[in-house]
């Protein structure tokens, strides 16, 4: 326990320097600004803004990126409440009751309770990360290549189970993602694989390029097809601070949401996505009068929003302790860390304690800032939402181009976001969801490396994955999950959760 506090005080020492405070503030502000734009989720936001952190020192850069992430997430909720367009999967649930509250003239209260719930969840999640960080890092030391491989297999199975729509399509997307990750020079033999002899493919496909193409450009193309009506709330925003009754109704959902979100967020394979859905379902089940849900129940905003934020934050745990990014956002963080010369994994904590604890402390600082900057700025976000899409998407387009060009100064990278944008658009048209592909791509390189190493150690015997207890356990969990997901009765329930 004493360790925890000395570590946290080290962290706050780093996070509370004037420069880092400024960076956290800037990150939150810019993240929210871009995140508020309908149709721009956290992945595209971070990919677009990655270059602006290049000039900073690694700690500052990661603090700012974390700020951008929370900001984008929070911005997504704002859009969900005010416009009923969820920026990404996790704010779908918020839109249900949040937008109804807004139509009843309680937009301010919905935004307020979302911010307060998020802040509380963020505080708890920060403590969870600080407390679990050290023990999990020790766990990572007993992990060999065999265990790593099995853990990643489990993560991918999670991603399949959590994806919307057809399980077969999700599996094929994951396989395609891993396949894409094998493009480039083979690390052991130095032979070029599937590069068409093109020199810029020799290092493989850049993750930022793939992510930007699939989540930035493809999203623009899709939005251009659907001329949905944008239903910006015309009513007054109303008071922002929830009153005593609101608090009374909301504090329990906040507590439960935090617990659910924090637990699910730790799971590899994007468990954080499930948090808001689970929290909403729980609240609806526990409510005395479930009919209020979908008609502006404050619990339906408080629970999922807390779960969302708690999960967003605890999903840093697999990255910081095991070096495995559990979702696409964390994969971008890996990219950012690598650019600054830091290899994510258990060694970060011992080799760069300033960075590790500074970043954790800055998460709490970032949450506090979001609470402070967002509520007064609501009016500005509302005006931003009124900018028509025909003016917004060319701007997003240019930002994507500049952002991706400045990462490597390669015009070919810019062309590739166009190509991947087109591919992503086609995939969406054929009913595939691109998120699992991205996760497969992210984990692909690590998986191949660990698979090869494990097989060299075991002299080519596949039994090693079953003989070693931890690895066998992880694979068993993966198998059980997959079977469960395929069972007809559970499958129906899963569809219900996602269509609600």
């Amino acid at each position, binding site marked *: 326990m004493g360790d925890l506090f000395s570590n946290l005080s080290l962290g706050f020492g780093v996070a509370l320097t004037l420069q880092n405070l400024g960076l956290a503030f800037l990150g939150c502000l810019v993240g929210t600004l871009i995140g508020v734009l*309908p149709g721009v989720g956290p992945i595209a936001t971070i990919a677009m803004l990655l270059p602006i952190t*290049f*000039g900073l020192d690694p700690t500052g850069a990661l603090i700012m990126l974390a700020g951008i992430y929370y900001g984008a997430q929070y911005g997504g909720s704002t859009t969900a409440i005010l416009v009923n367009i969820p920026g990404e999967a996790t704010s779908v649930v918020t839109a249900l009751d949040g937008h109804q509250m807004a139509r009843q003239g309680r937009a301010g209260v919905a935004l307020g309770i979302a911010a307060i719930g998020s802040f509380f969840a963020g505080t708890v999640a920060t403590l969870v990360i600080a407390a679990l960080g050290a023990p999990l890092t020790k766990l990572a030391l007993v992990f060999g290549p065999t265990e790593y491989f099995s853990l990643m297999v489990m993560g991918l199975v999670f991603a399949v189970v959590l994806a919307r729509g057809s399980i*077969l*399509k999700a*599996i*094929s997307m994951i*396989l*395609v993602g*891993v*396949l894409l990750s*094998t493009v480039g020079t*083979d690390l052991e*033999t130095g*032979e070029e*694989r*599937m590069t068409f002899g093109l020199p810029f493919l020799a290092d493989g496909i850049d993750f930022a390029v793939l992510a930007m193409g699939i989540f930035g*450009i493809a999203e*623009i*193309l899709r*939005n*251009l*097809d*659907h001329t949905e*009506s*944008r239903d*910006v709330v015309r009513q007054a925003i109303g008071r922002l601070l929830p009153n005593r009754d609101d608090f009374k109704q909301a504090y329990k959902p906040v507590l439960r949401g935090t617990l659910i979100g924090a637990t699910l967020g730790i799971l590899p394979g994007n468990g954080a996505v499930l948090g808001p859905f689970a929290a909403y379902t729980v609240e609806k089940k526990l409510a005395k009068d479930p009919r209020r849900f979908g008609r502006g129940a404050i619990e339906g905003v408080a629970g999922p929003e807390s779960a969302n934020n708690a999960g967003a934050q605890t999903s840093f745990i697999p990255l910081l302790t095991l070096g495995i990014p559990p979702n696409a956002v964390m994969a971008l963080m890996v990219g950012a860390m690598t650019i600054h010369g830091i290899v994510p994994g258990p060694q970060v904590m011992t080799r760069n304690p300033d960075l590790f604890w500074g970043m954790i402390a800055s998460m709490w600082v970032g949450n506090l800032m979001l609470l402070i900057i967002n509520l007064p700025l609501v009016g500005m976000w509302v005006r931003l939402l*009124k*900018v*028509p*899409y*025909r*003016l917004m*998407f*060319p*701007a997003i*387009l*240019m*930002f994507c181009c*500049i952002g991706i*060009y*400045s990462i490597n*100064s390669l*015009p070919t990278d*810019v*062309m590739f*976001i*166009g190509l991947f*944008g*087109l591919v992503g*658009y*086609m995939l*969406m*048209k*054929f*009913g*595939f969801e691109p998120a699992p592909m991205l996760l497969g791509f992210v984990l692909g390189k690590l998986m191949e490396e660990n698979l090869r190493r494990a*097989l*060299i150690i075991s*002299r080519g015997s596949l039994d090693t994955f079953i003989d070693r207890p931890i690895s066998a356990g992880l694979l068993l969990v993966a198998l059980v999950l997959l079977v469960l997901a395929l069972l007809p009765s559970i499958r129906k329930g899963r569809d219900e959760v996602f269509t609600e």
Partner: protein
Amino acid sequence: MSTSDESPGAAGRHGLVRAPQNFAGGLLLIALAALALWLTRDLDQGSLRAMGPAMLPDWLAYGVGLCGLVLLASAFLKDGDALERWSLRGPVLVIGAILAFAITIRPFAFGGPSVPGLGLVVAGPLAIIIGGFATPEARLRDLVILALSLTPFCMVLFGDLLNLPIPVFPQALAGLFPADWSQKAVLRATAAVMVLVAIAVFFAGRGRTTRTVDVADHTGRI
């Protein structure tokens, strides 16, 4: 989020293919798998004890191909979503804008002939204006104003404040400025000129088309 809008009509369709979306998806996966197998045909598979470069890609390609086959087969057996409407305008113009940006931002050679590097001053507005026409609601004047105000903003943000190595001007025009001006002074001067032109365009067209200037239009379209 966005499932096919035409799906209710799908049940009434006749023909061999009962789920066109899955049919197309299956074909795509099979083509992808075939491509991967063809590309790795010359590489060594290796053995489990020492995996060659082609082993994992090949396994994965078989996996992808198998998924594709199952999907294809299911398209004949089960009713599913119809293919959504495709529009060419959006993809063509958006990709065109991206390509225009890529080849003008710095010198780019297509085998023999090469494009001179024109920098952000040209590439930015080009991307915005070409891309902007991807929607039928595009208005040239608004896009010009947007291009002339966002480009200087990005020039100052990325080139001046963040010092990113992004080319800003056509190299041929470097001689036009006084020799003792620094790179940044030139950048700021150009940005200022662009903003002024943007403001001029904004006010110039105002008298004639007052109705359409209202940027925050309330048609509620996205």
